């Protein structure tokens, strides 16, 4: 069991994210764009580290293909 305020919420989310990452990958959207990590309210530095790392990852990946597709359609 996770330590979610709502008992199993974090576990439920984790399961969904595991699925979604693979579905995204198959549909051609980099799975690194979705990330799920359990950080408690007492773990500020872990949260910061994770967010900075995630931001870096996203920057390296560049704009989302969805956005590019949207722009093309709008044009």
């Amino acid at each position, binding site marked *: 069991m996770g330590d979610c305020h709502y008992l199993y919420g974090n576990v439920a989310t984790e399961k969904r994210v595991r699925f979604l990452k693979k579905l995204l990958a198959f549909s051609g959207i980099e799975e690194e764009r979705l990330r799920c990590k359990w950080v408690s*309210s*007492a*773990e*500020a*530095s*872990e949260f910061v*580290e994770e967010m900075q790392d995630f931001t870096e990852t996203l920057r390296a990946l560049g704009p989302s293909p969805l956005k590019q597709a949207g722009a093309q359609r709008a044009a």
Partner: protein
Amino acid sequence: MLDVGRHPNIELMAYTEVEKVEGEAGDFRVTVRRKARYVDEDKCTGCGACAEKCPTIVPDAFNQGLGTRKAIYSWFAQGIPSTHTIDPDHCRQLNGKKCGICKKTCQADAINFEQEDRIIEVGVGAIIAATGYDVFDPSKIPEYRYREIPNVVTAIEFERLLSASGPTGGHLHRPSDLAVEAEIDALEKKARKSEKALKRFEEKYGESSSEFFEKYERGEYQDDDRKKWADKFKEHLGTVKPLETLKRKAEGFTVAKRLAFIQCVGSRDFRFYPFCSGYCCMHSVKEAIIAHEHEPETTSTIFGMDIRAVGKGFEEYKIRGGNQSGISYVRARVAEITEGENHNPIVTYEDTRERVVKSVEFDMVILATACAPGKEAPELARILGVELNEFGFFKTDRAQPLDTTRPGIFTCGCAHSPMDIPESVAQASGAAARAAQVLIESQMREAS
């Protein structure tokens, strides 16, 4: 904790001590001293701007002195109330120096250097003593060389090192390495200062300090000002050389990966506390598992006489730690810890299976210290008019396990006896029930 802070029926008096208790069950009059915070509780929003600006740096007791805080501070980030407090021992203003920066910073106008302790009397029907315990001081055990060997730490110190919100952000830097890093910081500061001074000379005389010094050594210059320069340069070299050595040394620093946990430090020991504290075995297992989660190469050895995994899910957790987190459990009473190379602690013990004495080197040793009765328990017991038991915890009996020897006064948690969190929480509820019974009874008496 937040729930307590917000509960309409709870008046939280933090930073307050009990001085006198009069009356009887159902009608106690308690005199308490609300210690001066020098911060107005009603005005402080806990925003922390004051602590950010405060110039005085103090070792942080919450982080077991492993980190620092300011002279105006909150005990820890999620603490309640979030009201900040000025530490009168370190505050510049309160020690007669000129400062008052916090007062200027605070937009809520909450700082009040004139505040004094307030003595307040409160009327209550029942009292619960939940004053917890103290960590046994392992320097009383000379053979473990706590404080002599920097990488021998107590479990609670280790807990702070492992904590993501702790002084190292959860990375297991060894205290010996942290000390070197602190020294590097200090030397760098010094070097920057002397560099500045040298630069002034260099600009004045238009040559580099090293060139100048060569000439000076050859006796080319004799004047006082040049002598000052030379002295400054010598001093600078005296800073920079050890700094470089230290820096080279620090390059080799890694996080601690070989951990030893020593159980029953001060407990199950006739010299100190004869009892078993009950929670330390699981605490060590938990710390070893978390250390392994942080750094998968970590291995831990837990030295104990018995591993007491007696709570719900504990044995399963212990086994998991062995199977998945690189923990080995060794049945042994450690005889001695010595210091090896690189400040590595060496643990000497008898391997009872092989019947040989072994010495094994670790990166760090964690002492699972006894749950010692609170140092101030005797004084509180005196004030409350209750008895302590032979071990120094509040005395109770089996029929009413949460009642002290004085009606209307109850106890729970580690003030009662050593215990783990679920047991403490359950007892706390029990003590609340006993207190409620007293209150209801006295209400009924009044009504009839």
